[in-house]
């Protein structure tokens, strides 16, 4: 028989966890929330004066358009990453274990290098008369250099590249758990391979896909350094604006308000995720 643990004992064991959450998660968030309703001081810092002006400013065309552009790019990147990452994760999970391990390793290796370094690699590929231009010209597909660097597609490609592994791995882990007898049962009951995939496999691996979507969508709203490096100053994303407001303009309250909006959008997405996958039903079934 295990002795019953008393209330205060529980509290003692859980205290570090609560403390950590309070100091590093709830504290900063409350601070940011409060900050977003403050007024910016004339030169440096914040004046404790309540205002809604920071939120109103987001609706100014300059910032509003940035927000919409960021959302659009994040959406595009997420769709591309899903379309590329799902099949890859799916087939990786269906490979024999040895080759699967090799592929997993290949996916992981880039993580051992700084993502910044890898992005500089793309500059070499994308710049005028760079690798891409040379290749396409050698193949006689284009006559003049494309000058892809510092364009919207370059930023999108860079983001897809940076975020693809997260999708592949999360799809992989949920496909790997699939009970393939269920697909056989679907075929046995009269489903074509495509129909069985849509009604069974896709539905059951939805949690993996949705995890991948969140892991893609949320960062792609804020990956300002990708836009900075591959987009020059032509592509401005919400993340870049926040960084700029905080570090260069020193308008902390406005940066806080932008961050709150971004967090709100992210939270809505996560709520949607839980609604769609209904996590409970997926677990524990043979």
């Amino acid at each position, binding site marked *: 028989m295990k002795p019953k643990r008393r209330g205060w004992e529980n509290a003692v064991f859980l205290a570090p966890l609560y403390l950590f959450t309070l100091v590093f998660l709830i504290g900063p968030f409350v601070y940011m929330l409060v900050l977003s309703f403050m007024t910016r001081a004339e030169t440096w810092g914040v004046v404790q004066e309540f205002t809604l002006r920071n939120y109103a400013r987001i609706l100014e065309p300059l910032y509003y358009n940035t927000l919409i552009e960021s959302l659009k790019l994040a959406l595009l990147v997420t769709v591309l990453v899903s379309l590329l990452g799902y099949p890859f994760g799916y087939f990786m999970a269906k490979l024999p274990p040895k080759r699967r391990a090799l592929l997993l390793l290949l996916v992981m290796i880039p993580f051992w290098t700084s993502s910044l370094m890898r992005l500089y690699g793309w500059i070499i590929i994308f710049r005028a008369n760079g690798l891409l231009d040379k290749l396409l010209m050698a193949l006689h597909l284009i006559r003049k250099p494309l000058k892809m660097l510092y364009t919207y597609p370059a930023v999108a490609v860079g983001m897809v590249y940076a975020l693809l592994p997260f999708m592949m791995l999360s799809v992989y882990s949920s496909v790997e758990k699939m009970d393939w007898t*269920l697909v056989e049962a679907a075929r*046995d009951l*009269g489903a*074509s391979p495509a129909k069985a995939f849509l009604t069974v496999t896709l539905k059951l691996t939805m949690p993996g896909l949705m995890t991948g979507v969140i892991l893609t969508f949320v960062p792609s709203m804020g990956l300002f350094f990708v836009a900075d490096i591959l987009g020059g100053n032509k592509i401005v994303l919400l993340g870049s604006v926040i960084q700029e407001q905080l570090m260069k303009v020193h308008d902390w309250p406005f940066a806080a308000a932008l961050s709150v909006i971004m967090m709100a959008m992210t939270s809505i997405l996560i709520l949607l995720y839980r609604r769609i996958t209904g996590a409970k039903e*997926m677990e524990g*079934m043979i």
Partner: protein
Amino acid sequence: MSDTILGLRDIRKSFGDTEVLRGISFAARAGEFITLLGSSGCGKTTTLRIISGLETCDSGQVLLEGRDVTDEVPEKRDVNTVFQSYALFPHMTVAENIGYGLKLKGKKKPEIRKAVAEVLELVQLPGFEERRPTELSGGQRQRIAIARAIVNAPKVLLLDEPLGALDLQLRRQMQIELKRLQKQLGITFIYITHDQEEALNMSDRIGVMKNGVFQQFGTPSEIYDRPKNAYVARFVGSANVLRGRAAYEGDTLCLESGGVRMPVLANAAPPAAGEVLTVAVRSEYVDFASETESGIPAVVKEKSFAAGMLRIALETGEGEEVIASRHGIDFDLSPGEHVRFRFRKEHALCVEAEDET
């Protein structure tokens, strides 16, 4: 035969270098309950998967109502499977699970709802439409898996050890229920099991499989009372298999072992005198010889008690194990004791030696 619904003709299948099926042929009549019986690895599940189309065969033919469906995809075959693990879709309700096949056939919603309610009635789980598979017990999942298959009114229903995961009591109950369902629906059942009791209880005919071939295919009483070879005798009837030399006393075939001749029942092709002879005797028919009777000498190895029977293991001079069973626990023999055993002629069947391949 005209009412043959399913026919297998010389089915062969290898996985890599392993020959799993080495020429499986049989025909199932409409409404027949056929069991493929064998221990794991005998090829019975592969046979079932080839019938359903989930596995392809290397050579041979699968005929469904006389039509060759060997190369047809599973979704085109009028055959449904009850999987060993049930394979219920966890993301669907019971009604969606059962209606899955009908929906794919393009049936209308009210029609599906009606069919689902009817089949739930049939498996004695009315009103379970909105439950999730996770909320069901093992026995209930089993019934839903059966319902999901039979609602499509297949020509043949394939059952892959459907009762394997259930406890003994529930298994007995489901045996009776499955048999009732099968009679009521008149669907041909191809049933897989490694449990000989289950096979003997339920089947019209049994195919005993080993190493990818049928050892014997026949009615339960044929299999049990007239096992064709040593394997069937041992596996289905739990019989002792004794090997010795054939000898004749007059016209009577005898087993010669340990210097003693015991008369046995000859089969269609009895061996000539001096040849190796294999005889099957069930443990309850192994008697101990009195002073005046002749018997094969043996040593008592061990005694154990199970299910109301005392099991006495003997070892003959040739090192063969023979089991004698008696009712009651009180039997005056102890390990190490020398005894002589015998059996009556009508209880000793001459069988083919075990196929060693």
